[in-house]
């Protein structure tokens, strides 16, 4: 009878039960929190975002290359619309939705004024010439609840005729054209070959030329030296056409040609 009526001892059992419930509850919450990110297949989503991001940036370069060669000003928009459909097809079941906004109007960048139309801009036949593309993308992945991941992509190629000199020596008469080439972030392009210079013209007439590249202390940059031999008179204009390794084209032209008789 005494055993049944003892109430003090029950406290330990009740306390143990409460502690057990606490352990179970807290552990469940902590476990769920800690393992949530581990059990999700994040690599797959990261792969999709990275792949689409890199592909979109490449597409911008492809479009700019196409635009600079064909002057088709809607090419970037057309390619992007196709790209959005193809990305959905490539990742079925993920709910990948790619959106884009093309740059428009005048924008200052790279020390230049770029007048974008449908994400594309170019200024050719100047001493400093360029081709540029600019777009902002957003990626949504419905299956994982990712929305509004945004990034910008740029493609840019600039060629600058640093100097053009006609050497009118008695023994040899030739023209040297010094050009520098830069891409996005104004990084100098230093891996071009002679074949990348599709055309060199004097007075609007194509010429055969030789090619050298080196770092010039005179201009404080990496330069390409284009030499046209047997030039008997001072040309009124020099022109160089460049197709870089991405096939992006730009054409520079200068009417300022120095004469060197020394």
């Amino acid at each position, binding site marked *: 009878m005494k055993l049944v009526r003892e109430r003090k001892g029950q406290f330990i059992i009740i306390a143990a039960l409460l502690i*057990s419930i606490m352990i179970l509850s807290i552990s469940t919450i902590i476990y769920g929190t800690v393992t949530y990110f581990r059990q999700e297949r994040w690599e797959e989503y990261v792969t999709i975002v990275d792949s*689409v991001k890199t592909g979109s940036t490449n597409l911008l370069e492809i479009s700019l290359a196409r635009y600079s060669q064909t002057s088709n000003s809607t090419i970037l928009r057309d390619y992007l619309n196709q790209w959005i459909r193809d990305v959905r097809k490539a990742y079925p079941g993920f709910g990948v939705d790619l959106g884009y906004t093309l740059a428009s109007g005048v924008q200052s960048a790279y020390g230049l004024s770029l007048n974008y139309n449908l994400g594309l801009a170019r200024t050719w036949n100047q001493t400093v010439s360029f081709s540029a593309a600019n777009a902002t993308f957003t990626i949504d992945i419905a299956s994982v609840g990712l929305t509004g991941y945004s990034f910008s992509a740029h493609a840019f190629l600039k060629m600058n005729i640093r100097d053009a000199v006609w050497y009118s020596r008695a023994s040899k008469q030739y023209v040297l054209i010094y050009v520098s080439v830069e891409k996005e972030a104004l990084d100098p392009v230093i891996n071009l070959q002679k074949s990348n210079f599709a055309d060199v013209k004097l007075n609007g007439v194509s010429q055969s030329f030789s090619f050298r590249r080196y770092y010039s202390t005179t201009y404080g940059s990496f330069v390409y030296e284009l030499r046209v031999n047997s030039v008997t008179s001072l040309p009124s204009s020099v022109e160089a056409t460049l197709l870089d390794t991405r096939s992006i084209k730009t054409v520079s032209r200068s009417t300022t040609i120095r004469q060197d008789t020394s």
Partner: protein
Amino acid sequence: MKRRGIVKNPKGQMRVIEAIMAALIVVSAIVFLYAFAATPSGQTYEAGELEKIGHNILHDIDEQRLLSRFVYNGEWANLTAALIVSVPNDVYFNLTVYDVNGNSIGHPLIQYGSSQTFVSSKAVASVTYILSGYQSIYNPRVLVLKLVRV
């Protein structure tokens, strides 16, 4: 007398029994948690790690502007070599290139390791990577890289 008193004191015995029961309850709770904790299997972790490796390799090669060149110029031997030098020694791979409609474009076998390994292994990771084109030509390709650790 004292000894008899201890043995016969039912209050003291009950304390011991209660303490044992309490301990049992707490231990049961912990055992229950351990038994029902659905930890991801080793295979899940392994596939995740391999996916990470595969994605990093493809992304690195693409960042160097080599992936598009290899795929669009059909430089399959170069692509295979680039993948072999990039994957860890104990990882085998198989790469298939498709168009966006899921049709294989018909390239030579791009593989390192025996085909049997991919059939028999329980943890085969698969990475899908899309390329938009090359130079001035838009022509998307979907690369599916399968990886397995031996």
